[in-house]
């Protein structure tokens, strides 16, 4: 691999922090969902980069699993968002501050 692993790590950290910033600053539940996808991708980049770094396929396999989990998460997330929307008429997470409503 011509590009050093550090670069990928930094790229991954950047992507992760951007996703984090999205979660921290946005109120729209959909933006949460997308930010979480970004963060998961950051993790995937790390997995794959280290897979190559160690010459071990475990990282790539894990990346696949991560994708599956991401798909599941999105499915559930969208279910929740729709319920949220149905109950509040909006997808603003700051509306749903109680444990139950």
């Amino acid at each position, binding site marked *: 691999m011509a590009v050093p692993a550090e670069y990928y790590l930094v790229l991954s*950290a950047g992507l992760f922090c951007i996703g984090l910033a999205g979660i921290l600053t946005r109120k729209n539940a959909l933006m949460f969902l997308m930010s979480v996808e970004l963060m998961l991708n950051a993790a995937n980049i790390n997995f794959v980069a280290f897979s190559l770094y160690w010459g071990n396929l475990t990282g790539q396999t894990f990346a696949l699993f991560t994708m599956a989990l991401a798909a599941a998460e999105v499915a559930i997330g969208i279910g929740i968002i729709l319920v949220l929307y149905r109950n509040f008429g909006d997808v603003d997470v700051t509306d749903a501050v109680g444990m139950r409503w």
Partner: protein
Amino acid sequence: MTTRPELRDTGGLLPAVAAVGLFVVMAAVFLGAPIGDAAGFPQNAEVANESIGDASVASNASIQTTNNGTFAQVATASGNESTLLTEDTGVNATIVTAGGSAYGVVSEPVSVTATIGYAMFGLSSQLPDELKSESFLAVFEIIDLVLVAALVGAVTLARREDLSTVVTLFTSSEDAAPSGAVAADGGSEPDVSEESTDGGDA
């Protein structure tokens, strides 16, 4: 109809500072870490080797490819002597010496994708020696369950709560038809329900 993307200008300073700070710290740590060169994936795996004589012949040997296969050809005083390495053509073959003998070695690429499949399905006997990986069958099953759970969860979340019938993919239409109960959203707002669609598979 499209709109130009607009940048948000709201939001607190602290979250941004926290995120950027985290990035700075992580980047500092990563760049300072003693990470050397990558090992990389092995390109080839040996599949055959044939002895072609003692070590002294190695300098005179070469790999020849004909339509019949791949040969190791040794130039001797009495002429060329060919040894069949494999009947395939276009393979990666080299001459190596080891233990006082010269060998013609045929290697072929390792399939990363195939290995991933072996690892995921727990076929550890198929895993090549050159490309290490663990067996993930249990994880695979768990992820499978998680996916099913996600599907069920999504369906459960999407059903209308004010109707006793569960709206799922295979519910017969006469149960759900009267009030357009397939709408997954909208609640009590009639105008919202216009956009309703089947939330069951969301």
